[in-house]
């Protein structure tokens, strides 16, 4: 279907695109290993977060916590806030986002364009600090509605009922699903779907590894694991640093023509690791991975210019995923 009644109605239903040049392809023993990109940048605001954002808002409207005139509050490193702001504008809500100050300028501009008010949280501690500040602000404004993507089941449900079934419909031979681990919503939801529909699909998490500033907590007890996270729904989890992420995101553009955001490079790195493993084991594999967003919002980070070394240096201390 390509005709929709409104922008909000067009969320999801994204294409799955093969990577003929980056996939190992058909092996001498007749097995094949293929990579497939789930193009979430094709959503209305250009990221996968349109799915959970819309779902969380609709759920809150349905259960009565979100009513006309309400103010939405959310800790976000960018994309979720942008998605919520778009939906809030169309539905008539005010929105306040708490965002770490070490996020790209494009994300701030986009948030403001869609009408969000931004509260900056300290760079040190990354999104942990944004969560902490948002919880504090929520305490001061009990009438504001914090959808709280890290603990809201509607986040995972958007993927269990949307992303997962779309993948199986487009790729019935799917063997692996690889996605980024942030709120954990994508992985939890898609995994729940496949654990029921096709339990042998391996669920692989790629977690961005930032510079030291982001891990500069005052003590370990300030660490954070999203309430949504259930480790039993994941089969492997990899930590991917900025160097591998930048290298892969550039290869994706160079070899397949796909211009993706930096976090997609980290996910692709983990997906290629699974592909190499399958080749070595002599097994066929159809590996689907998530393209979370396009590269537009990250041009100012310098990730796409100069040498990989330079890009790695520029990303140090930034929340690039």
């Amino acid at each position, binding site marked *: 279907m390509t005709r929709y009644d409104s922008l909000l109605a067009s969320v999801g239903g994204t294409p799955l695109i093969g990577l003929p040049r980056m996939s190992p392809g058909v092996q001498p023993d007749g097995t094949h290993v293929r990579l497939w990109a789930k193009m979430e940048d094709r959503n209305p605001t250009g990221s996968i977060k349109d799915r959970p954002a819309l779902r969380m808002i609709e759920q809150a409207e349905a259960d009565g916590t979100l009513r006309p005139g309400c103010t939405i509050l959310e800790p976000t490193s960018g994309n979720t806030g942008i998605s919520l702001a778009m939906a809030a504008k169309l539905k008539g809500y005010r929105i306040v986002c708490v965002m770490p100050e070490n996020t790209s300028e494009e994300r701030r501009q986009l948030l403001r364009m869609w009408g969000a008010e931004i509260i900056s949280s300290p760079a040190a501690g990354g*999104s942990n600090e944004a*969560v902490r500040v948002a919880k504090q602000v929520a305490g001061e404004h009990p009438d504001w509605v914090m959808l709280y*993507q890290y603990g809201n089941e509607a986040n995972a449900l958007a993927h269990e009922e949307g992303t997962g079934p779309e993948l199986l419909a487009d790729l019935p031979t799917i063997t692996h699903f690889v996605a980024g681990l942030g709120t954990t919503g994508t992985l939890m939801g898609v995994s729940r779907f496949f654990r029921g529909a096709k339990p042998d699909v391996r669920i692989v998490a790629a977690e961005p590894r930032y510079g030291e500033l982001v891990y500069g907590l005052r003590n370990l007890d300030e*660490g954070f694991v999203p309430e949504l996270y259930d480790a039993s729904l*994941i089969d492997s989890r*990899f*930590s991917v640093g900025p160097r591998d992420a930048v290298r892969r995101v550039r290869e994706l553009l160079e070899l397949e023509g796909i211009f993706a955001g930096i976090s997609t490079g980290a996910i692709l790195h983990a997906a290629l690791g699974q592909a190499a493993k399958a080749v070595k084991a002599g097994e066929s594999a159809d590996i689907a991975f998530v393209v979370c967003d396009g590269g537009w919002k990250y041009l100012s980070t310098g990730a796409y210019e100069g040498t990989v070394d330079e890009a790695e240096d520029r990303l140090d201390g930034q929340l690039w995923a």
Partner: protein
Amino acid sequence: MAIEVRIPTILRTYTDGAKAVDASGETLTALIDDLEVNHPGIKGRLIENGDLRRFVNVYINDEDVRFIGGLEATLTDGDQVVVLPAVAGG
């Protein structure tokens, strides 16, 4: 057997500020015991009630040890171990 262990800022009080230290052991448990010998106190910050602390993530060659045997995950010469506090994404 030398395995490089990368230490997060918050635990460098135990390593005299060193970002990375060498240790040895055939399993993660053995490696952490060896770390404790040279950097007393660090084990208690990583392990609680016989398991990794909730907000501590340990990776062997970038793979989260919780999915490859946890404290019994095996190590070989030249592996790299990274210790990081759990942080939020999204």
